[in-house]
């Protein structure tokens, strides 16, 4: 990926073992709650923290739906969001370094 290229948000599932890994919400993110937290902190980029919680849940739901993780009629809130199982939930390992002989 070129330096400072904008992140791709959708797709990339199955690419993480290739030499062209595409790290998206659907292929890489561990937790759906991280998405809510990030959107709440910094979006929209030119007016951070101006969205209501309902608007943020709606955005999270749309992004997860685009990634095939929830269906179109899913309603997200503080109770349902933490229950979502992300595809790459088990894709991380604690720092094992030193790893290079």
């Amino acid at each position, binding site marked *: 990926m070129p*330096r400072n290229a904008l992140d791709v948000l959708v797709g990339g599932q199955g690419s993480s073992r290739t030499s062209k890994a595409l790290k998206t919400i659907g292929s890489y993110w561990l937790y759906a709650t991280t998405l809510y937290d990030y959107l709440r902190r910094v979006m929209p980029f030119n007016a951070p923290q101006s969205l209501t919680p309902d608007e943020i849940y709606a955005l999270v739901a749309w992004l997860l739906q685009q990634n095939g993780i929830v269906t179109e009629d899913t309603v997200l809130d503080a109770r349902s969001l933490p229950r979502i199982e992300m595809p790459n939930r088990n894709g991380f390992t604690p720092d094992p370094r030193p790893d*290079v002989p």
Partner: protein
Amino acid sequence: MSEETRGDNETSDQAPVSSSLNRRQFLAGGASLLAVSASAALSGVQAEERSEAIDPMHVPGALPRPYGERSPFEKQTRLAAGTSSTTPLQDLQGIITPSALHFERHHNGVPAIDPTRHRLLIHGLVDRPMIFTLEELLRFPSASRIAFIECSGNSRDGWGETHDSTVQALHGLTSTSEWTGVNLTTLLGTAHMQPEATWLLAEGNDAAALARSVPLTDEVLNEAMVCYGQNGEALRPEQGYPLRLLLPGFEGNINVKWLRRLKLGSAPFMTRWETAKYTDLMPDGKAYQFSLVMDAKSVITRPSGQQQLLPDFHEIQGLAWSGRGRITAVEVSVDAGRTWQTARLQEPVLPKCHTRFRLPWKWDGQETIIQSRCTDVTGYQQPTRESLIKIRGTQSSYHYNGIQSWKIERNGLVKNVYV
């Protein structure tokens, strides 16, 4: 000024310059430089009217001024690219990075913060949640240390195809400053941290509300600082004014700038910056998470990419650093890695700090490749690019610390290459 002239200038006190031509060039160049520097320091119209030929010994110099600037002849700058800018490592002296040249990386711009309105909140698993003003923090016992901060994305081009570049563009997301502030444990003690607290969320007051989880290991509790000072004055806005976290040896991003909140918890908070970003994807599809310490790295800064050499004496210089402690050795190869010579470490040599190394060298005008590799106090030796990629593949984005190779072409041009 050419690389050749610079080299002579800095090393003339300790090594003979064998070429009389170069000596003459240096003296001639030096004389004209002296002639203009003082007159240019005069202000405004007066300075413009001065001829470059005026001898500064024949005119009064500039008067005192409230805040100093470097000589107008010094042109080194950061190199900005998007949301970061790099330190001109090739132009630095010693180990301290001037605050104005400290690298930048921010995630939604540099905030403009009025220090009188700024607060630091400490809450979560504490018996006494506290809010501090800056003035209150300044009344705590202060601490100071010299430490590097390196973005974990520094040198990331090393994961990809080689391309012609400079040491600044390739490796300039690292800088060293003297940092001053309050020991984190002092503040945590004041807030009566509870024993079950094992992680800390640090949050910035910028338009990214950047937040990172910090493990409360012995190392962190012994060394972390909440800093308000950088190189003898207040932090620069780009480095977190008025308050930042310092975790010596840890990747830059977790040294949270514009620090406004510390929340104690019993598990990591899993922000975007420790899940989607700053994690290292391995060839088997798994990613390292919380790989926070910056491993040992060194680079030759002179001669380095896109500089031009003349066949003659040069002092090879570079920087080495390790997030795990002191640099104990740097070796330099001037024959593409066939043989290695021990470089001299220039004092001061401090733990988790840029360390300058030097090796005298006479370039014979033949094509060659020069490299450096360092060892830190744990015995860890900087790996070759080949051995690094053999384990980690090419998709991990962060924490690249392979040996840098510079090819010197017959025409004296220095190129970034892989061996």
